[in-house]
């Protein structure tokens, strides 16, 4: 089975310095939990940052299935005023 997917990654704030917004080709991943593991392995500084994923503009609370052409935003908390 061919399970390569293309995801659009959008990153914000300091996370954009670690992972630039890009089209990401991935294979062997099927859900957002696996994507987090993959991202933290590929971009190690991410593992020390607080962030939240949004899948197709919905903030991810529990593990969600990924499909080809999904958009994943990676967002840090901001505190500045």
């Amino acid at each position, binding site marked *: 089975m061919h399970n390569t997917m293309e995801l659009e990654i*959008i990153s*914000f*704030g*300091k996370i954009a310095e670690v992972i630039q917004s890009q089209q990401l080709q991935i294979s062997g991943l099927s859900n957002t939990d696996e994507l987090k593991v993959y991202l933290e392995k590929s971009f190690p500084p991410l593992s*020390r*940052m*607080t962030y*939240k994923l*949004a899948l197709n*503009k*919905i*903030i991810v*609370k529990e593990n969600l299935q990924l499909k080809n052409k999904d958009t994943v*935003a990676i*967002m*840090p*908390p*901001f*505190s*500045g*005023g």
Partner: protein
Amino acid sequence: MKTERYDRQIILHGFGEEAQFRLSAARVLVIGAGGLGCPILQYLVAAGTGHIGIVDDDTIALSNLQRQILFSTADVGKLKTIVAVQRLQEMNPEIEIKPFNLRIQKNNILDLLKAYDIIIDGTDNFDSRYLINDACTLLKKPLIFAAVSGYEGQLAIFNVKDHQGKATNYRDIFPVSPQAGEIPNCAENGVLGVVPGIIGAMAAAEAIKMITGIGKPLINILLHYNLLNQEQYQMHITPATDYTLPTTEDDFLKMNNHHDLESPSTYIEVDAIQMHALQQLPSTLLIDVRERHEVPVLDPVTYIKVPMSEFDTFLNTDIQEENILLLCQHGIRSVAAAEALQEKYGHSKKIYSLKGGIVKWRDHFLTPSNER
């Protein structure tokens, strides 16, 4: 009500005198009179919001003026709340504006919030933001969350039910506060003045929309704004179940936030005088954790340089000295460094962080060679 002042908005389609009456009866509390607070207040006051409270315990610094546009050079050193009320009341004497010159805390926030209908969070730190969020959630007060970093901003409305009857709060996005020092604030990371200007104006717009009933406020939506490419990205928030919040005021007052529970802070925050006393002790190491480009440059013999970006590597080496004092520009990163060292050494060493950092004790650090 004299209406000439508000004529240009009253004649708007969908606004009218009724919306103006609603505005004049509204009670809005703005917490933080800084980069966000200034434009939020200016637009709420100009639009005729009837009762406004301003909470801040800070004084105006020269480095505030680049974005805190209510204040002028002659105001440096004065209390933000007092100057803000004076300027705003000149702008519109027909409304009531109250200053609260205090720092919000667990034991004063509930009474403050109860006197207002809508709360706007324009503070500059996570402790305040989580406190405001939890208190507003307990009291079911509509909360407009506005925050900035660098060239970007975030905006959302919490504790207001959507058409499905669901309300959310900040913990539905970030259940636990980040560790101290993990997320840089404006003082550490920088911010372009127009960013809080834009996000602050948007926050004021959301307040006006909620009060008057026009348009679709950002309920259960987090808006992300990027000035560099002028892009906005909206994300939907749904209620989460991985946190608990107090349901009574008694529980709220007894609550420890998660951060306190996870990392009991046994390092000590000191002032410049205590730092000076520590320097006299025989076994003290002073560590400057700022990055190499930051100024003023300190004497490298007295203050060894270990930037936060290199701190993980540094943790692998063993320190001989008994007392370790950490310092940075504002005393935020040094707390993170102190926590890391505390974790490594436990009670075997005494660890200190300079509260307020080099900026606060500037005179103590300036020498003829590093003065700019």
